[in-house]
């Protein structure tokens, strides 16, 4: 079994209100100088056939219209 991690994030240019909310909260906590916060999703899995992970991401884990994904073998 191959272990992998899939990172899914909102596509560049799509408004990410979660990222914005996190960003706005930071100065109040004393964290200055942090910008462009984007909040995504991470999926860890074990696959018998790592070749098919791309297809899996396209069909289910990510919506290619609004999200980019990255497969990291572990």
């Amino acid at each position: 079994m191959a272990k992998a991690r899939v990172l899914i994030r909102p596509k560049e240019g799509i408004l990410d209100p979660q990222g914005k909310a996190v960003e706005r909260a930071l100065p109040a906590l004393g964290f200055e100088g942090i910008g462009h916060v984007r909040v995504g999703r991470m999926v860890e899995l074990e696959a018998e056939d790592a070749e098919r992970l791309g297809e899996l991401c396209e069909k289910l884990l990510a919506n290619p219209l609004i999200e980019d994904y990255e497969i990291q073998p572990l």
Partner: protein
Amino acid sequence: MIWGVLQFPGSCDERDALHACEVVGGEARLIWHEDRDLGGVDGVVVPGGFSFGDYLRAGAIARFSPAMEAVAEHAAAGGPVLGICNGFQVLCEAGLLPGALLRNEELRFICKQADLVALPQHPAVDGPETGHIGRFSAHRPEGADGGRTLSIPLKHGEGRYYAPDDLLDALEAKGQVAYRYAEGHNVNGSVRDIAGVRSERGNVVGLMPHPEHAVDPLTGSTDGRQVFEALERYA
């Protein structure tokens, strides 16, 4: 007309959808998501709710239900399909409608009455009295673009319609924008105020607001009936 209303684990508006189908004079039955056969219904409603807990993305898991395969075949054969709220999200995820629904701009779940402008299928060609949703006998005619304003409740956390600009241009050119929020009523940040879209052929329609909750004078507006009536006329 016989309607089938899908039911997924986590659906919550299927009873109101059944009722709405009956109010406009149809017969309606529930179709469990594991049924591969729609049982010969004339039209399908994919109702609102939180199918499969909205895990991953709203509608992402429901689209793989056996009943959705049957819905895709029904749609391909020209049969009418109405997706409401979560049902709209499911139809988008399934690729039966263009675009996607994102988290509301302000991150809050919104529940309120909103004004929608229902747009005819091909405003430039058909005018307001023909085409699918345009065949309304609305009591509140709207202006220039041939649309009609309907007062319909909405309730959602992920209702911000999104599609890239080139796709939006294409949708508008082909008359695929079925509903827009009236001015001042775009509560979730949807691009170009889009509240609902239709397929190229016009037989698949999805919208975030809930026409099935607006069919009885007891709850205020009865404008939602027109959405069901338009689909019934299409069938």
